[in-house]
């Protein structure tokens, strides 16, 4: 699957001298909304391009991306979609490992 929007947003940010955080699904176990290679790019103002899977864990990863922009530390985030929330099972029921890194020109 081409990720042109993410790559384009990355290029544009670098041309303007701005850093970005890139979250990439490194591995999935069980049933997950997106598969390995899915990407979300997060800018310093919190806006983002691309998706690593809708509601399931995306807010958590967005926060990690914002933290990464701040401290510059690349990290692996594990999102567990098997635990129930609000008494309801999360629909996905898998585990995703997501690599979050800060990139700058």
């Amino acid at each position, binding site marked *: 699957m081409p990720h042109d929007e993410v*790559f384009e947003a*990355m*290029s544009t940010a670098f041309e303007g001298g701005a850093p970005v955080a890139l979250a*990439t699904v*490194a591995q999935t176990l069980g049933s997950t909304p997106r598969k390995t*290679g899915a990407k979300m790019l997060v800018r310093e103002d919190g806006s983002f391009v691309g998706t690593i899977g809708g509601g399931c864990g995306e807010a958590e990863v967005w926060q990690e991306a914002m933290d990464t922009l701040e401290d510059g530390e690349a990290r692996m985030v594990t999102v567990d979609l098997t635990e129930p929330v609000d008494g309801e099972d999360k629909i996905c029921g898998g585990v995703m490992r997501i*690599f979050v890194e800060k990139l700058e020109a």
Partner: protein
Amino acid sequence: MANSAEIARALLTSAREGPALASCTVMGATDDVDVALGAKMLVYADRLLGDLGGGPLETAVITFARDAIPRHLVQTCAFTPSGELVEGRRAIEAADAIVEVLVEVVEPAATLLVVGGGHVGLAVGQLGAMLGMDVAIIDDREDYANAERFPYEAQVICGDFAEELKRFPIDANTYIVLVSRGHKVDELALRTVAERGAGYVGMIGSKRRTRTVLQHLAEDGVDRDELDKVFTPIGLDIGAETPEEIAVSVLGEIILVRRGGGAQPMSEYGRFLATTRR
């Protein structure tokens, strides 16, 4: 060392126009391995951009990545620092030192070239567009090859089949579906495309008729190995009847060729109740 801006531009170019590349990113490493998290290397068929710090690990990743390109692979792999691929969760956990590398092929959307704008061609194109493929449809009849007929994004080409097909660019990322109005046209079209290295060529028709077409072409000197690769009769055996169902069967086959898979109901891989009841 290539900078991030160069890498980003190269990724964008390959995603939009090609050529295909395998993007390799270090996503994890045990503490004792001297490699930077996030290190990136783009591996093209004939060159590199960026590096993973050299050494046997880099050499192993390059070899793996080159092999991944024709398979459209996206996979995180574990290597030892000395460049051995480690497979399976147990082996990875047991290894002393591991480097995790995401190898991901970046290339433009695949092209779906539909020969014949009839009911089946219309449905095949529609499903291809839904799957994110760049769709082109060729027919020599204006009633079947006009933009109004195709309510989705497609390049509609009206003209002589042989001429238009000769002109159409074909490579390993091109998937060709021959569903024209008759086997004479399909034969002509297959003659034009068979030896051009498409990722997939499928031709509709009964076993008997498609065999006749293949025989004609073989007798005329078309490469037999190339003819052997043609998927004909076309599609997965799912009992498809309507043009739309046939489109599902054809695109199912194309996904199978592209991604690999067992082409069975997933449930066949583990019949839980059937085995526990006994």
